[in-house]
């Protein structure tokens, strides 16, 4: 999970068609998204141009430098992954690539991966255990020279062993890692990577800066013209179902306001901008264009700083949450372009995950009487100005969000009014995104903040937000019970029981009133109706998760 400014650009998607949560617009409604069903048959041939808001920084998405959305989008159709997160947030085996990947022993945790015999890189070399081993060694953190984006999960592995001509991979963990399906999500060809100039580490860190000639997916990188465009072309040597389209062009258009006109003028056929009211309205009015608004893993929330005097009192935090009117906030903001948005009652799981449970209880429902009673009972007294105070200290806090984000600024104003009703004074103190996310939040220079977290389907990633002294625990919340619950939950290998454990953590976080989740952020995709099988997907997979199936009608 990450603050909006980093993975925020990933614009996570949800294919909510099957769940009934998506709102489709444009000239015809919702036939394009295949979701988890079978793809619609498409013509072979043709090309699509996508308006990419960012240029890839390189081609090794495992490095910290290249782990952003711009690279992930390009490499989605190029690198093989054991599991793919589907639009309904289920994590499913890529059956074109793998025969199986199963937990074969609980203690020590052992996973056995069986790679399809036909699975080969585009140069004809087998995709094998050597590629798994290479990825593990680069990512486990023991060799500090690798510029690796994350060691999570890989650092818990004791060994990676190949057998059956390296088509079977046995991974043994030294520490249990419940979210093992999140591993080996972008394999690199070890035989190629280890021969890159500069040696093992330099090859990994910078060897793919200019390009990547191989492929283990339906597409491979064709041409790359820095600042202008990048073109993926069909990988004819792909062992799975061949891609329908001849090519996919990523045209770099960083200014989202240029995208609707470019779509209307036929210069691009697919856009995926951050939804804004006027932009969504403009796109929906374009004939021959399908659009889809979805709600993904990214969710907006209110964050409390536990180091702020006043907010260190749970009664105050709970009163704020009680007085908050989430429904009204939605109606005046995000529901204006999609009224299917719902208040979020869980900070571990979102509405359209099967593990979701609404744990919000009485919070977020504008119960002014209950909120003021909480404050009265806690010894606060209302002054002549209508603001509560205790020991001469008024309940007055700063509210900070990203300046320039109209939606959030509106939320701030609404929050201020709602808090005044329960006798709490709010002063708006917004900052530009780089300052808020880069400095103020990490340094704890805020009282109450409004921003988004971007989750993965793997709930253990929440540990770094709610555990004592964890990197993204900006508010400095600390509860040893919760710390232990996170450690324990990560050891549960049964999916159902793990979900129960994480929901128990969420309830505990509500009890401690750590944050107030508000709603899932919408995502917006629009494309020419000449194409089929293009669908929104909310996980970090992004819109290119099924690019091989895209095609012309």
């Amino acid at each position, binding site marked *: 999970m990450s*603050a909006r400014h980093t993975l925020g650009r990933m614009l996570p998607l949800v294919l909510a068609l099957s769940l009934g949560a998506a709102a489709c617009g444009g000239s015809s409604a919702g036939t394009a998204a295949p979701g988890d069903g079978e793809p619609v048959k498409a013509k072979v041939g043709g090309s699509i141009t996508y308006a990419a808001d960012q240029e890839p920084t390189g081609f090794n998405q495992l490095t910290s430098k290249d782990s952003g959305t711009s690279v992930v989008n390009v490499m989605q159709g190029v690198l093989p992954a054991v599991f793919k997160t589907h639009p309904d947030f289920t994590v499913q085996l890529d059956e074109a690539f793998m025969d199986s990947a199963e937990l074969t022993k609980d203690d020590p945790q052992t996973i056995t991966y069986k790679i399809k015999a036909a699975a080969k890189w585009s140069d004809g070399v087998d995709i094998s255990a050597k590629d798994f081993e290479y990825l593990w060694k680069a990512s486990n953190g023991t060799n500090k020279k690798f510029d690796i984006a994350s060691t999570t999960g890989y650092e818990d592995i004791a060994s990676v062993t190949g057998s059956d001509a390296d088509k079977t991979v046995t991974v043994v963990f030294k520490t249990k890692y419940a979210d093992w399906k999140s591993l080996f999500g972008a394999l690199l060809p070890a035989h190629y990577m280890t021969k890159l100039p500069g040696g093992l580490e330099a090859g990994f860190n910078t060897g793919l800066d200019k390009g990547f000639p191989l492929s283990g997916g339906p597409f491979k990188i064709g041409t790359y013209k820095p600042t202008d465009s990048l073109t993926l072309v069909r990988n004819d040597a792909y062992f799975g179902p061949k891609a329908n389209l001849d090519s996919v062009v990523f045209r770099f258009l960083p200014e989202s306001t240029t995208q609707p006109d470019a779509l209307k003028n036929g210069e691009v056929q697919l856009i995926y901008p951050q939804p804004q009211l006027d932009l969504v309205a403009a796109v929906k009015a374009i004939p021959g264009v399908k659009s889809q608004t979805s709600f993904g893993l990214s969710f907006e929330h209110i964050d409390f700083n536990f180091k702020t005097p006043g907010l260190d009192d749970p009664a105050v935090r709970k009163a704020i949450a009680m007085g908050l009117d989430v429904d009204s906030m939605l109606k005046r903001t995000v529901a204006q372009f999609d009224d299917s948005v719902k208040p979020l009652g869980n900070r571990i799981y979102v509405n359209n995950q099967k593990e979701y449970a609404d744990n919000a209880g009485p919070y977020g429902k504008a119960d002014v009487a209950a909120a003021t009673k909480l404050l009265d009972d806690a010894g606060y007294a209302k002054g002549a100005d209508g603001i509560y105070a205790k020991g001469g200290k008024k309940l007055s806090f700063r509210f900070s969000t990203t300046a320039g984000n109209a939606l959030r600024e509106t939320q701030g104003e609404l929050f201020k009014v709602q808090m005044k009703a329960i006798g709490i004074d709010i002063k708006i103190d917004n900052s530009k995104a780089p300052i808020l996310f880069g400095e103020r939040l990490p340094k704890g220079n805020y009282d109450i903040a409004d921003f988004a977290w971007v989750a993965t389907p793997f709930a253990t990633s929440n540990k770094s937000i709610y555990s004592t002294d964890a990197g993204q625990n900006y508010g400095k919340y600390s509860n040893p019970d919760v710390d232990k619950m996170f450690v324990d939950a990560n050891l549960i290998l049964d999916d159902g029981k793990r979900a129960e454990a994480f929901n128990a953590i969420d309830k505990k976080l509500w009890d401690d009133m750590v944050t107030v989740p508000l709603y899932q952020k919408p995502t917006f995709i629009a494309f020419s109706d000449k194409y089929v099988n293009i669908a929104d997907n909310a996980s970090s997979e992004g819109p290119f998760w099924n690019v091989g199936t895209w095609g012309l009608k």
Partner: protein
Amino acid sequence: MEGGSLYAYALRRVLISLPLLLFSSMIVYALVHFAGDPLRDLKGRNPPVPEAVLDARRSALGLDKSLPEQYWNWLTGIVSGDFGPSIKGIDIGQDLQVRLGVTLRMVVLAMLIAVVVAMLVGVLSAVKQYSPIDYTATLLGFLALSMPVFWLAALLKEFLAIRLNQAVGKTIVYTVGDRTPNLEGSFFDKLPNIAGHLVLPTIALAAVSYAAWSRYQRSSMLDVLNSDFIRLARAKGLSKRRVLVRHALRCALIPITTVVALDVGAILGGAVITERVFAWHGMGEMLLTSVNDQDVNRLLAWLMVSAVIVVLFNLIADLLYAFLDPRIRYA
């Protein structure tokens, strides 16, 4: 003007600009340094980026050194043509080359059109002062001057591209970029596509520059037409055309020359809004992205190139002065 004194003057101007460039680079370096942490993006990720990786990145970018040290390393590098590492791993030299070419392509045609039209309209307005032509030109000039580029761009895209293309049934005018990706064929095959991409940004950029320049030209021409030497020329019986072209216009070109040279120098550093609204990946976009990323080396590369262009065009303006007005001497 003697050749020797001209060269000495030009050299002196260039030498004077060097400490200016140095000083401005120091200021910008310090401002970017204190603007925040360039690694903030990495630090905010989850799962967290390992500390060792952050240390390595800090070291590779030279961020582990003191500010004076960092600046000195940059300065010594730039002398040997090394712009230093970019935070986003961009090859700064190549990036500059590409972007300068893109901006040049956008600016040159627009400036040519703007200069020619501004001169013609300005002179005509002055000669026909308070006539319907003058009023019309004034109205159009102020309209173009007051219209924000992004709004003009929106109108142009809708009416001169989308609707026109729909009317003719194919795309002949484009709204984004300088050419369609993967365009193939000979130069003449590509020409319609490249020209189709040039139409809107050229009109937008030319309109804005034309508006200001035509007002300068009108005002300057009026000053000259009302001066004594023009009256004398007329009194001596010179033809109207000769008075206008040989005497008045030449003098009236001096102020506009300065304005055009200075404006073109600044625009070559990036027509920021025009590039943005038409998605041209030029110098203006380089400025915006490097500031946004706190990519100090990339920003300084932009600054240096832009500053050199401005200095160069200032110099050109001064030299053109001497060409247009023989009374001017460089000492």
